[in-house]
């Protein structure tokens, strides 16, 4: 009798146990680190086999701006270009050199030592964004054609990479 009752009860409960509902929970997280291009760089062409952003050679450094609204939560990693994203055909291998430096800060006290405290990992410079505010980084790049061969006429474009990495 007990067993039967149990079976019946089980039959009754099974349909209720199989009912399920999925309740979505969504949220939007706005990044506390915003990157934007402040100034696009330009290459100068001081000689046939060199393209450079150096101002003295007719170029302009690229400037990228980081706006951070949460202190000590992000790293800024910036890598100067290591190849052309578009160019005429290249007669030889191109050698790249580049550098990144803090150009402007919005808080001298909190950001004044960003440059001295930066970490260089290969071609990439890592900055610890310990203060809130805006920081402008200047990106320099120089491309030299192998064998001192001349760059062919045309438009050359290279891309530097700037990322914001959460700690």
């Amino acid at each position, binding site marked *: 009798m007990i067993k039967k009752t149990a079976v019946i009860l089980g039959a009754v409960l099974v349909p209720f146990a199989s009912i399920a509902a999925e309740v979505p929970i969504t949220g939007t997280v706005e990044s506390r680190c915003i990157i934007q291009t402040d100034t696009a760089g330009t290459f100068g062409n001081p000689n046939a086999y060199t393209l450079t952003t150096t101002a003295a050679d007719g170029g302009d450094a690229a400037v990228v701006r980081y706006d951070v609204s949460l202190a000590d939560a992000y790293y800024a990693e910036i890598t100067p270009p290591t190849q052309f994203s578009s160019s005429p055909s290249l007669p030889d291998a191109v050698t790249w050199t580049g550098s990144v430096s*803090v150009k*402007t*800060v*919005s*808080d*001298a*006290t909190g950001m*004044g030592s960003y440059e001295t405290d930066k970490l260089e990992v290969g071609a990439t410079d890592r900055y610890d964004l310990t203060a809130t505010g*805006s920081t*402008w980084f200047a990106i320099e790049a120089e491309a030299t054609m192998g064998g001192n061969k001349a760059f062919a006429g045309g438009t050359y474009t290279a891309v530097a990479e700037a990322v914001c990495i959460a700690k």
Partner: protein
Amino acid sequence: MLRTLLYSAVLALWAGYSYSESITPYYGSTGNAVTDQSLKWSMDNVLPEPPGLDIDTVIYNYTIRKQTEDQVDVYVGNENANGTGYIFREHDQWRPGSLDGTEINKVIGTGSIHRDVWGDGSIDVVGNGSVEDPSVIYTYRVDPCYDPQFDPNCPGYQIPVPDIPEVDLTQLYDVTEDENIDLDRTTDPEYQNQENLDENEKKKKEEEEEQKRRYRLEKAMSATDAAALFVEGQRIQQMNEIANIAANVNGYYSKSLPGGTYQDSVQLADTQLPDNRRGLRNNLAQQLLHQQMIDEQYINIGE
């Protein structure tokens, strides 16, 4: 009911539409307040004229010049014109390790603070360093109706009433009450002299006046007569000239030429006229030449 509501809505919209554009608040920004190496400036030289001006933000930037191992403190601020202290004062602490040539670009929100409160501005550098290419710019909002009398459309505008000063009439000069002035004519010496003239003198004066009047009348009439005589003389002269012209012309009209035959009256005294010898010679020479010319046309034919 619906119509009443509609009218109310139209009136409300009309009032809003008729609000003048000139009283709408507007925004602007100053130029660089730092104009010399003193790094100090007066807001009177920086801000524009309107009285209803509130400063919202201050944007400044400069490049720090220092040795990496040094600490330099830079203060940017404006004094409080209505008291002591500062409206705002930013402290940029360039610690050891911060690099020479780094720029700072800072935006300071001050809220809306009226221009009267903003005192002199300055950049003060403490430590072994300096600032280069400093720039301080203020952004502001101007409310034209800060003074309601600026425009009749401003809230609180009052129709101006001219200020008419009150005058105490008792303080005004009254000539009738001046002790130095006697308005009684009978006491005037000239009036009294006139009254004292005797009858004989009066009569004598009247006769003299009568004689003068007559003399003036005669002069006027004689001038009139002279003009009339002159005109009459001119008229007579013109009539004489017309009569003379008629007499002179009629004399020519009455002349006539008598008709008949007029005989030739030429007479030759000599009976024989000899030939001119020079003429004969000349004539023969011409004849000879003429003959030669005629003969020349047969020369070719004979050959």
